[in-house]
């Protein structure tokens, strides 16, 4: 085989967001050698975009809060499709992970008596989100980044992993990547690999996700022999900017509603009162008066319907726009300016204030924002063991957005940052256990490396072919139109045909111009196989789940079905590529122990 730059590590971590960095700290603390590979610079991962906070039942505002209530909220928010054990571990361990961040230098906002302040968010019974204004994700990533750097960890920046590499026994043995600045290839041999690559949102036209969210980890895991579950469950965040068009999809934090903002239609009506599902009726306010009392004191009234879980709110906004009661640019209005003082808004929501002022010329302390649903998060992901984050492939672990199960059919706001640190830590620890137990690869499949490199270089060698940007644009348009927030059988079937035939063909025949050094067209060409792979799984899951649940809404099956609530849809692929043979099977949910079932019963 051709010689490439090569590195050996105990643990290789792919992705440098919250989950990857937390995993690195854990493995490093166990005395292992750790390499982190990220396709961007360190500290730029999508975690920085998280605004509202990190959910942890510390009980600093409401002493009644505890892990049991957090667990119950998470399961109900996920429409009971969650891996209950992940939801349980998450609820139990999140407080310790938040306190740990303070030991590493994080500075959260404080209560009057000096404890960590917690804010209200959709679907959480109590004020539960530790936060720093509306830039909590930045605080999380900077704290973890500074900790990782102080521990002397090797970070390979702007280095994109193309594919995982096995040993001759089928265990994970490492990965093959290329340096974006030079276009040169590099191989990593590792005893264990942790995927922490984030989400998939870049396959939709209107998304809050950056260019990085192309589902690389989802696709690589699938190609390497792992399963993906719940891929049809995509969260469309109810409040993305809708204007100017060029920033359509950009996130507006749920903290706006947690801090008193309300949704209105073009008639000025607070329409959410008309969209309260039976499951949430008992705990939701019936009048504006009752809802408004709740903000100051949660015992004085029930929760405003504006703070229902995200899937409920996104569907309601969609329905209002469809009914002709939308805003001028096709969204609805989010109003906090008429309800809170300018000083309060600027202090609590500084980056929202600047975002609207600078990008839209809107002063949110005086005017309502125009907002609408935007593709934000994938609940689905790599099927893992709850306690260890291990996949079914020996030596391969997954944590954070790339892992599935924790959030079921719909994620609650604030549960993502806590997911990253709870399961990032667990993945790092489990990888360390695996290595300390003497496990690891016997060798390193050079054939896989050579094949991956040949595929990556093929777009340069073709005489002619399409511009990758054209394929990406068409894919985004198609997924937005056919596999968006409201779905139906015929459109999904059409999407799958297009993905299997047209898009797979187009990706196989694209052409890249220019050289290999820092060539964004080539980079996109290497992202497209991941995007197609993930889009196929999402569409296949959406076709087979003939019901509506959480982040999956079928207009031809508008109700949740008891039968479909008993299993996840699990995808696998043979052939190890985007054009392999895809299989989708029903995978039964874990059976919940009686004491946890009782928590959910009590809550009713």
């Amino acid at each position: 085989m051709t010689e490439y730059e090569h590195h050996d590590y105990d643990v290789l971590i792919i992705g440098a967001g919250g989950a990857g960095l937390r995993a690195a700290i854990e493995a490093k603390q166990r005395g292992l050698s750790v390499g982190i590979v990220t396709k961007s610079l360190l500290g730029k991962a999508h975690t920085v975009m998280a605004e509202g906070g990190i959910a942890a039942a510390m009980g600093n505002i409401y002493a009644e809060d505890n892990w049991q209530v957090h667990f119950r909220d998470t399961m109900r928010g996920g429409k009971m499709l969650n891996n209950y054990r992940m939801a349980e571990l998450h609820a139990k361990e999140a407080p310790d992970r938040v306190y740990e961040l303070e030991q590493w230098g994080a500075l959260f906002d404080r209560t009057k008596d000096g404890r960590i302040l917690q804010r209200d968010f959709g679907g959480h019974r109590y004020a539960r989100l530790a936060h720093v204004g509306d830039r909590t994700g930045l605080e999380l990533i900077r704290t973890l980044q500074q900790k990782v750097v102080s521990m002397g960890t090797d970070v390979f920046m702007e280095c994109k992993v193309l594919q995982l590499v096995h040993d001759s026994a089928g265990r994970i043995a490492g990965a093959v990547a290329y340096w974006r600045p030079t276009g040169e290839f590099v191989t990593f041999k590792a005893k264990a690999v942790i995927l922490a690559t984030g989400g998939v949102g870049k396959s939709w036209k209107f998304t809050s996700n950056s260019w990085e969210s192309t589902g690389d980890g989802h696709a690589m895991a699938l190609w390497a022999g792992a399963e993906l579950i719940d891929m049809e469950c995509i969260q469309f965040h109810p409040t993305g900017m809708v204007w100017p068009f060029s920033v359509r999809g950009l996130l507006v934090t749920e903290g706006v509603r947690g801090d008193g903002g309300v949704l209105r239609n073009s008639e000025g009506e607070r329409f959410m009162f008309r969209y309260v599902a039976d499951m949430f009726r008992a705990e939701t306010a019936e009048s504006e008066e009752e809802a408004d009392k709740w903000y100051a004191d949660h015992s004085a009234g029930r929760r405003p319907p504006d703070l229902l879980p995200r899937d409920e709110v996104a569907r309601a906004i969609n329905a209002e726009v469809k009914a002709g009661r939308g805003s001028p640019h096709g969204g609805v209005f989010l109003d906090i300016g008429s309800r809170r003082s300018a000083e309060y808004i600027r202090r609590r929501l500084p980056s929202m204030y600047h975002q609207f002022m600078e990008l839209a010329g809107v002063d949110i302390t005086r005017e309502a924002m125009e907002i609408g649903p935007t593709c934000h998060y994938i609940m689905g992901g790599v099927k893992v063991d709850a306690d260890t984050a291990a996949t079914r492939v020996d030596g391969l672990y997954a944590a954070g957005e790339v892992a599935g199960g924790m959030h079921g059919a719909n994620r609650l706001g604030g549960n993502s940052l806590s997911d990253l640190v709870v399961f990032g830590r667990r993945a790092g620890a489990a990888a360390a256990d695996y290595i300390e137990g003497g496990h690891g690869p016997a060798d390193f499949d050079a054939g896989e490396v050579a094949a991956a490199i040949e595929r990556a270089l093929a777009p340069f060698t073709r005489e002619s072919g399409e511009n990758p940007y054209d394929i990406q644009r068409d894919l985004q348009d198609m997924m937005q139109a056919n596999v968006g927030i409201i779905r139906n059988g015929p459109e999904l079937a059409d999407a799958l045909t297009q993905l299997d035939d047209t898009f797979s063909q187009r990706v196989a025949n694209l052409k890249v111009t220019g050289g290999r050094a820092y060539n964004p067209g080539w980079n996109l060409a290497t992202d497209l196989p991941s995007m197609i792979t993930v889009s196929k799984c999402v569409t296949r899951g959406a076709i087979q789940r003939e019901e509506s649940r959480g982040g999956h809404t079928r207009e031809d099956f508008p109700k949740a079905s008891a039968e479909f609530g008993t299993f996840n849809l699990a995808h696998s692929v043979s052939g190890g590529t985007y054009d392999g043979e895809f299989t989708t099977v029903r995978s039964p949910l874990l059976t919940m122990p009686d004491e946890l079932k009782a928590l959910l019963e009590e809550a009713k």
Partner: protein
Amino acid sequence: MADVTMRIWRGDASGGDFQEYTIAQNEGEVVLDVIHRIQATAAPDLACRWNCKAGKCGSCSAEINGKPRLMCMTRMDELPEGTVTVAPMRTFPIIRDLVTDVSFNFAMAERIPAVLPPPMPEGGYRMFQQDVERGQEFRKCIECFLCQDVCHVIRDHEDNKQHYAGPRFFIRYAELEMHPLDTNDRRDYVREEMGLGYCNITKCCTEVCPEHIKITDNAIIPLKERAVDAHYDPIAWLGRKIRNGSKRSAAEAGVQPAP
């Protein structure tokens, strides 16, 4: 809307020049939108670094009409009529087109002695809002490195990069110095090893900060005062000896940066 001509620097470490692209404009666009449309059509290999496109990650720094700015937060309609010039940050070596090698900054980050709080008491630390707010201002930093780009100490004197942290890291040192929990004293270190004295407070860094951090007034000047006090003020020195120091020196704390 009328077409606009973008004059974009193209090239690599071996050299390059500005190339012009004329393209239609859309309402409400920022510079990065226009760059992306050029990438998607006329120049798929046009290199530019970006991530969030929302002013939160600090990746898309460039010099727009000569001024260091984020491409994602610069609206086309706020720029003067006529050709728009986009060049890479000048202080850092070129990789390609608008992408520069900012590894200097990551090397400086590695040399910062870590935060060193006391053991956490039962139920968590107690800190007060007015005390954390000082550090929170500096923790808003998105590491766009525009302050480093515009700082003449490094922009005009390449050799200073060995022993000068620059404004981005002076706010980090200030944040740690003002951190309610930290016990690690970096005042001598930042003065002796990180070149704090080279900064002559021209405030260029503050002017370009997209997060509106008052780098000079709130971080560098107080840091200079504290560093100087630590070194020259005999009463402060004696006081520390008697109190046995609430902050340990970076060396004593054993958290010198990793090799």
